[in-house]
């Protein structure tokens, strides 16, 4: 049993190192944003620095309006993020599914659409925020295991161009590129 755990731990370490290399070298390639579920509170920078206000608002809504006790957990808030390392600076791009998002049609004849949500771009250095701004970006995830086949790879992507200092975004839903989700923002 211990041997199995040790082998699994070693594998995770190798995978983690591989990911770190990919992050430092892969700035110019499109990268699928990583999915996060904030229900389990943590000291992660996304929960404590990027989206604490959104988590607090969702917790208040769940407890006060839905009358559902959270018992030390957070409300169901999900987010996507990409992180780029530029020397001693870390650039975080993240979008969260919140009440302010426009999430498309609610109808028996509708299909899955991306949500247009707040997008936060933060630059951090030595653990401190040196710049931040809020824009809009498309949110889509495929965390739901019962999605139709064509939606099981739905994703939002980012690509950072270090030469121009811009971040580009695109979203694919049902195998199709969503034109309104193609955006580009300068990283300050």
């Amino acid at each position: 049993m211990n041997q199995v755990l040790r082998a699994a731990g070693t594998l995770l370490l190798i995978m983690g190192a591989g990911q770190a290399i990919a992050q430092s070298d892969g700035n110019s390639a499109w990268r699928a944003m990583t999915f996060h579920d904030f229900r389990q509170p943590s000291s992660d920078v996304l929960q404590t620095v990027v989206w604490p206000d959104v988590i607090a608002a969702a917790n208040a809504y769940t407890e006060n309006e839905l009358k559902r006790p959270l018992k030390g957990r957070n409300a169901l808030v999900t987010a996507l993020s990409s992180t780029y390392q530029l020397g001693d600076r870390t650039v975080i791009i993240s979008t969260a599914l919140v009440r302010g998002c426009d999430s498309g049609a609610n109808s028996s004849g509708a299909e899955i659409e991306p949500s247009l949500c707040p997008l936060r771009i933060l630059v951090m250095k030595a653990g401190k925020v040196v710049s931040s701004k809020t824009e809009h970006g498309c949110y889509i995830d495929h965390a739901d295991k019962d999605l139709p086949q064509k939606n099981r790879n739905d994703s939002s992507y980012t690509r950072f161009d270090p030469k121009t200092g811009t971040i580009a975004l695109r979203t694919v839903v049902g195998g199709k590129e969503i034109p309104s989700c193609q955006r580009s923002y300068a990283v300050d």
Partner: protein
Amino acid sequence: MPRFTKVCFALSLAVSHIFASSAIAQRGQYCERTNYSAQQITDAVRNSSLRDDLKSTSCSLGGLGRYESGGNKGVYNGSCCTGIFQLNNANVRKYAGTDREGYGCLTLQQQVNAWANLTNDGYNTGVVRQLASMQTFDGQKVDAGFLSACIQLGTGNCQRMVSSGRCSGFADINGTTICDMARSARAMTDPNCKDGEASCTQGPGDFPTNIGVAANPPTADIANVVVGSSEV
């Protein structure tokens, strides 16, 4: 087998596979199947936090629930949407704080409460305000049912319709427009349902007349006649 026949055979296999795959993901059912009537849905709307001016035509909202789900609160359309008002997956998370399956198993009132909060938020968007200031849109009367249909099909999609100036400016994949949805909801309303008196006289944005004035007075700056407390 001739080459052309082989190609046709392969194509038909591929097509049947696609249909089979999509059939797996098609309509589903969570918890019990229900058949709530338009009146029962209307009653739940009246007991929800929906803003008063939209509640004033809650009979058509009961019709909207029947139109969307046939009164079955656990129905999943196989793609985006679940429940009495067919909330999409994203709005289920945001407004009900649960996933699709959890939402399908909530009570009718809990589902309607989440939908009411979504609709109230949608009412505050620019496009709904713009619509609410119109008497008609492309020949359709703009009433609470029409505004609800605009929010129901998504305020971004509704903006496309308003920008085009035509009902046909937005349609879902089945070709359903916001105008179609509003018409269908009215048609599926319980014929015996009685809206508040306000529905006969109140246009969108008017002061609600279906609730006591003392409970909901206008502020002094928008009142036509201001009476001081000593003058009462």
